């Protein structure tokens, strides 16, 4: 029960934090319930959000929904509250009671409440200028344009989420799913060992080299700032190319145009 309340509270504050949405919503529902005469409109625009709020907070229903939806995404139940219907509808009901200059003045005031009461969505907090039609970080394109297609790659964590979106012919030794190994004291399996080894501040080539070779990684891509201990050539890797932010190593036995993709996990 306590766990349910903690999750519900955390999700609720995380969803409505940083804006006056919730107080405005409460005002909206109260206004609709008070002023709307049509019972169906009153129910659908005013009462329905309150019912969903009740279902969200009530432990009896909440625990059931948490089981169905999953406790890490319980906040999605809040999507059912139609903020962009209830709030504008309440505001329009308010405007409907007024006439002339007063009406326009209140309209501007209500619009100002929405503009000043929340966080601007289209801001640099969330968005950054796009440099390409793919809308991927430019450093990803810079690296991918140097690589041939149809290869198996071990890439830096900064690249793994995006590389295949630019060139899906590349297969990756691990993707963002490997981040799960970060919190583990001990990991098992060559991919996990390889991932852990390349997270070290200084990469030990005597560990990474044989593991990468065993896993069939034709290309290795690391941040340019990484330092290494050992000699890549001892494991038949050599420097292939570099960008401002990344260095690419290649298996010395790789032949141009060769298909080294790895299909089996």
């Amino acid at each position, binding site marked *: 029960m306590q766990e349910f309340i903690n999750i519900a509270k955390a999700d609720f504050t995380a969803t409505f934090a940083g804006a006056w949405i919730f107080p405005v919503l409460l005002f909206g529902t109260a206004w609709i319930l008070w002023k709307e005469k049509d019972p169906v409109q009153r129910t659908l625009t005013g009462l329905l959000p309150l019912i969903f709020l009740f279902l969200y907070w009530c432990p009896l229903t909440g625990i059931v929904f948490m089981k169905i939806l999953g406790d890490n995404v319980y906040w999605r139940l809040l999507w059912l509250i139609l903020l962009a219907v209830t709030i504008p509808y309440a*505001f329009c009901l308010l405007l409907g009671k007024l006439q002339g200059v007063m009406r326009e003045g209140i309209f501007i005031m209500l619009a100002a409440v929405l503009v000043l009461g929340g*966080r601007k969505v289209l801001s640099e907090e969330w968005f950054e200028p796009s440099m390409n039609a793919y809308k991927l970080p430019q450093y990803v394109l810079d690296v991918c344009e140097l690589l041939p297609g149809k290869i198996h790659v071990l890439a830096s964590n900064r690249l793994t989420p995006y590389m295949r979106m630019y060139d*899906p012919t590349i297969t990756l030794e691990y*993707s963002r799913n490997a981040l799960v190994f970060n919190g583990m004291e001990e990991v098992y399996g060559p991919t996990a060992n390889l991932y852990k080894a390349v997270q070290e501040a200084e990469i030990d080539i005597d560990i990474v080299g044989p593991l990468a070779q065993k896993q069939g990684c034709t290309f290795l891509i690391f941040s340019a700032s990484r330092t290494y201990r050992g000699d890549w050539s001892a494991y038949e890797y050599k420097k292939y190319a570099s960008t401002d932010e990344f260095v690419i190593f290649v298996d010395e036995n790789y032949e141009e145009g060769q298909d080294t993709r790895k299909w089996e996990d």
Partner: protein
Amino acid sequence: MRFEILISAMIFFGGTFLSGYSVCRILRVQNQGLFSAIVAGIISWWAVMELLLVPMTMQQAGFQTFVRMYSVVIICMMFTGMCCWREILRECRSLWHEGRRYMTPGHVLALLLICYQLVYIHHHMYLEWDDTYYVNLANEAILSDKIYWIYPETGTLADFDKRYVLSLWPIFYAWLSRLIGISPTIMAHTIIPWLMIPLAYIVYHLISKMCFPGDYWMQGRFLTFVVLLHLFMSGEHTTGITFLSITPWVGKGVLAAVWIPLLFYLILRCVDDRGVGNWIFLGIACTGGCLLSSMGIMLIPVFVGISVLCVSIAKRSLGYLLYGMLSCFPCILLGIYYIYLTH
């Protein structure tokens, strides 16, 4: 890129417009204008896709086969829509006359704000980590001709993740990118916002028409408030309305920002006109919503069920509840299948 955006918008809005007329004619539902036809078309497009895609995925059919089959169905729907040309012409003529009534300050302001939103999003990017799964699912479909049998994050062959197999929305933009001939990544990040953002506001416009019938001034103000809410009244990125700006190409985002308001609109329509056709439409929309996200399979029946229960109580008629529950039947069926797959 402007050309690709234009062609995609023409296929998407033009195609759904014609398909909408055919579906309305078949269901004998009164069409409520151009935007209503577009929404009807989109509902039927995605419902048809869900009905085709689930069995095809389970049968390991190729993506190319899906593209052919789905395209044939869509073309048939569009041709049937063309048969309603008299109705369409009449509608266009009335729109020409009625259009001037929509030139209220509220509508103009809303339109300007929507244009600002589209242009801003076009020139900026939001990096979504989940894209490595969803967008690559579309990329893999085109590259490997396999629907969902390759783990999209690494490109290795894998048994599919049963959580998402019933809701393969990325295959929709894979289909669209195959038609246009561009990468699904570009389709998702650069073109889909030009389709989903107008669609969301079309839905809100239709809601405003239902809430304030004949009062164009108020409809305009309603729309302005809606757009302002989407642009400024954000909490965190988990708020449903925020998804419209940040990730309009993600199925969950479309569910939260477009589909749930659309279901609300359809419920309003059912209340306004209790014809069976409107309830069937609601059922089709429930099916189409399942394509967007597995979350839809669960959230849609909850939303529709509770809404129709409230209407039933308000109207003191059990019929609403009964029809509403029947509309949710596709979701319940898919929900049972989902439980069967995941347990």
